[in-house]
């Protein structure tokens, strides 16, 4: 590679790194419940070799009952060992994986096309709102994406060399690892691998012994996961999020029995309605308003937002997609088929899950979307003959991109915390630190997990915030006698996590009458008298979210 291009790549990588690590501890302003769960489970593994429930080096983490994939938790162990149990240590693995993805994408796209397109693709990924947002918060999907890219890269490297032994092993290792890392990949990877085998069958036949051995190696790595997927806890996530249970679909299916007229009873057609509903969900990931206008949901409902791609990208993206589909410009034969296979498989898992337009679940498509934009951009560039015009084109495009990045940063650092910190469990850190500090003064600290500014609609996991910010020794937590009070109890020391009963009763037996107890909860469960409120906890936007109450 030319020195100039190498320099550009280093600048892009630096930019990607900075955008993912700058103020990482402070933004997002609050740790999501998954983040504290990952952090404390990693801390527990580091100290005891067990998760928070006492399972030795598990392959699936029960955590808050959602049975988390294991890789990110294990990768968080070293960062916690180095930096301690804090926000930075928990977020660093995803941020690092995100930064490295920029480099991995460069190498992958370079293998698919050429230096220029791969440089532009990695630049777009480095500044991508879609990728930055999820890299800065401990999301498994970011890590899984890196593994997918590496897996495909090594596969392509393997098929291009007759002695690609190591590459095939590496490829299957990373692809298998990605399936351990995030749920979407468990749907995406089998189809992708099947497609790769069909596309590159001739090359694989030439290398059949190595290929079979490496495939067996991949299957060997996957055996525990396959075993797990047959167990109820392994199926839980898929069952809970499968689109059949989606409220919107259920509403439509319910409605389809309305207005039923006898001659049409034969056409009850729930299968058709379900199929159509799924197709709508699937195609939704190709909707332009989702891609360019409002996918990221970073501001209040109805306000200006940002898509998964910047608003400067549509002309290049549309042109790039068009060129890729219908011309042979730079993308040929198998490569083209691979790109479109990836594109069409990308949203498959997301479309099979509940909730429409879920950018995190569809993150797998990101390299293809960025590739299309880069493709269109480079095509335009190559068509300009005049050197000065080339410079103007480049300057204008970079200026617009810069403007878009600034817009994203403004949304991310200012408006996103204002609009959405509630959903990132803002307030629980302060409440936990206060509760931990005051705990000795009371017989008990009772914490209610329900909260929300519009009503008690969100159920948090406050015990994790108390464990995380109190840096409670996992050994002590595991052995705490209070954890045996109930099955799956999370109570420890004098902290009790349960619903608060603030009713007035003639018997005076509810929490409202209990003294020497510190109650922490939202205004919905603690409508206490002013003089009973000893501390209020506020969201980033200044709204009260939690309060501490003592009966006097």
């Amino acid at each position, binding site marked *: 590679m030319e020195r100039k291009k190498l320099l550009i790549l280093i600048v892009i990588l630096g930019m990607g790194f900075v955008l993912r690590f700058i103020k990482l501890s402070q933004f997002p302003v609050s740790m999501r419940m998954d983040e504290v769960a990952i952090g404390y489970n990693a801390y527990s593994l580091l100290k005891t070799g067990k998760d928070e429930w006492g399972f030795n080096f598990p392959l699936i983490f029960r955590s808050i009952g959602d049975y988390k994939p294991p890789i990110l938790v294990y990768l968080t162990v070293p960062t916690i060992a180095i930096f301690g149990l804090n926000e930075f240590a928990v977020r660093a693995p995803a941020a690092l994986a995100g930064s490295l993805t920029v480099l991995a994408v460069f190498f992958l796209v370079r293998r698919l096309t050429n230096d220029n397109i791969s440089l532009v693709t990695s630049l777009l990924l480095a500044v991508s709102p879609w990728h930055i947002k999820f890299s800065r918060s401990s999301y498994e999907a970011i890590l899984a994406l890196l593994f997918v890219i590496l897996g495909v890269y090594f596969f392509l490297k393997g098929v291009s060399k007759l002695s690609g032994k190591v590459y095939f092993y590496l490829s299957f290792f990373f692809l298998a690892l990605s399936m351990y890392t995030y749920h979407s990949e468990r749907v995406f990877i089998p189809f992708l691998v099947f497609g790769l085998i069909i596309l590159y069958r001739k090359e694989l036949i030439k290398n059949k012994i190595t290929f079979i051995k490496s495939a067996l190696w991949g299957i060997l790595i996957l055996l525990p996961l396959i075993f797990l997927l047959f167990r109820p806890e392994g199926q839980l996530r898929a069952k809970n999020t499968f689109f059949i249970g989606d409220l919107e679909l259920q509403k439509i299916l319910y409605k389809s029995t309305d207005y039923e007229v006898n001659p049409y009873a034969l056409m009850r057609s729930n299968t058709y*309605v379900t199929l159509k509903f799924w197709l*709508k969900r699937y195609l939704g990931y190709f909707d332009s*308003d989702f891609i360019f206008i409002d996918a990221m949901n970073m501001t209040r409902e109805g306000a*200006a937002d940002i898509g998964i791609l910047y608003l400067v990208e549509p002309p290049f993206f549309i042109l790039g997609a068009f060129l890729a589909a219908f011309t042979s410009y730079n993308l040929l034969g198998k490569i083209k088929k691979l790109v479109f296979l990836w594109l069409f498989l990308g949203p498959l898992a997301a479309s099979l899950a509940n909730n429409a337009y879920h950018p995190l679940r569809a993150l797998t498509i990101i390299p293809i979307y960025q590739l299309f934009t880069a493709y269109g951009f480079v095509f335009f560039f190559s068509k300009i003959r005049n050197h000065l015009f080339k410079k103007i084109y480049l300057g204008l495009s970079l200026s617009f991109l810069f403007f878009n990045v600034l817009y994203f940063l403004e949304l991310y650092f200012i*408006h996103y915390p204002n609009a959405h910190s509630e959903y990132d469990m803002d307030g629980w850190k302060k409440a936990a630190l206060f509760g931990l500090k005051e705990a000795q003064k009371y017989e008990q600290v009772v914490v209610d997990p329900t909260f929300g500014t519009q009503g008690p609609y969100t159920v948090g996991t406050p015990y994790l915030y108390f464990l995380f910010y109190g840096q409670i020794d996992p050994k002590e937590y595991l052995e705490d006698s209070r954890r045996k009070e109930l099955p799956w109890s999370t109570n420890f020391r004098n902290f009790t996590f349960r619903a608060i009963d603030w009713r007035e009763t003639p018997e005076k037996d509810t929490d409202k009458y209990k003294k020497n107890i510190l109650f922490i909860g939202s205004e919905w469960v603690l409508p206490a008298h002013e003089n009973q409120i000893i501390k209020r906890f506020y969201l980033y936007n200044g709204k009260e979210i939690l309060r501490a109450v003592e009966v006097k």
Partner: protein
Amino acid sequence: MHLPVRYLKNQKLLLSILSIGLLVRLIYLDKIPEGLSIKEAQLGWRVQNIHNSIFLLRLPSALFGLFSIALVYLVTIQLFPRQKRLALITSFLICFSPWNVYLSRELSEEIFAFVFLLAAAFFIFNKNPRPIVASLFFILSILFYAIGWDFNYLTDTSKLGEINLLRGESSQAGLSFAGRLFFNKFSFLVTGVLSHIFVNTSPSFIFTFPLLISFFPIFLFGLFYFVRQKNPKFNLLFYWLILGFVLSIFVKDTPDFKGIIFAYYPLTVICAYGLAKIRPKVVLLIISLVVVLNFFLELNHALVKGYWADTNLWHPETLEVAVYLVNSEKQVWLSDALDPNPGPAIAFLNKISFSLSNLASSKMYLDGWVSVLGNLKIGNYEELFHNKLLFEEYIVSKKDREKFEKDMACRKIESNLIKNYFIYNDCQWKEKNY
């Protein structure tokens, strides 16, 4: 001038398609969709056609639906003179397109706009073009389409609130310049315009609503061949498609299958182009699938179950009330909880003439809202309760029934004519509620 008749000679297949198209559009026209849309009721009341028949009210739309099939054939054969098969498949797809059948079976301006646009295209693409006639048809088409135009987003003052809110947050963070730079009327207008276009060009909307599942693979297949052609006619269709979508910025910002009416022709041609490339036997198989999926399943959902009728509701229950009220001389109160504006439909079906005297007594406002119709008073329960009004008879919706029976002492009337309402007479307001 090449007359349509010449193209239609010896066209057994086309005539078959037209016959099926006519049948599909006319069969049970008065019963499916059941009920009357507000638009149909209001127009029906004004026009007062013979026998006040719903069939006759919808007949113009059905006939225009039929014309659209014929015109699609004619326009396609003019654009692609040697591709009779393409023209036939296109007209077949239009014949069984749920959106076209749907719009042909209710009184809708959009089917007229579509036919006038095709007529304009016919006269402009003719070997001897008639630009003036074409322009007239085009203007007619735009006029009919324009009935549904909505420029609300250009003047939506609530956007100012959003802008101020976002700017305020920026200012609080010490970045008031950035706030002004990113959140202003211009940026909101740009994203508003783009958003209008994007929502109406979304694959999830086009292929699950107007074009439907069965068209999706056919479209992809057709598009693949379509864009590889060097034929300038294809470019023309491409621009037509773009224009069809761009015009949707003038309609609502939620996807509306009526908003992209001008884009249907090129979309259908692309689908047909894919089918024309396939062997006839396979085409037959696919066409059977299209017929089953689009016609039987989708239209069953659209027309019978009323899925598509989100914005232009039919209220079959209003017909029950209308039938019940025929020749009624009583002072009747009707709850508006089930159908907010049943007046025009009742007036139309009971042959109450749209005269000035009736207008005055009906308190019919500019937007067609009817609250009094002769002896019939239509209103909400809260108003009735507040004024403690007494009528000879009350027709109460299921929603209001509980409150009504709590407040009123009545005699319930059993009637086979009404299923969705409850009828009461000899009513008195209960003392305790005074």
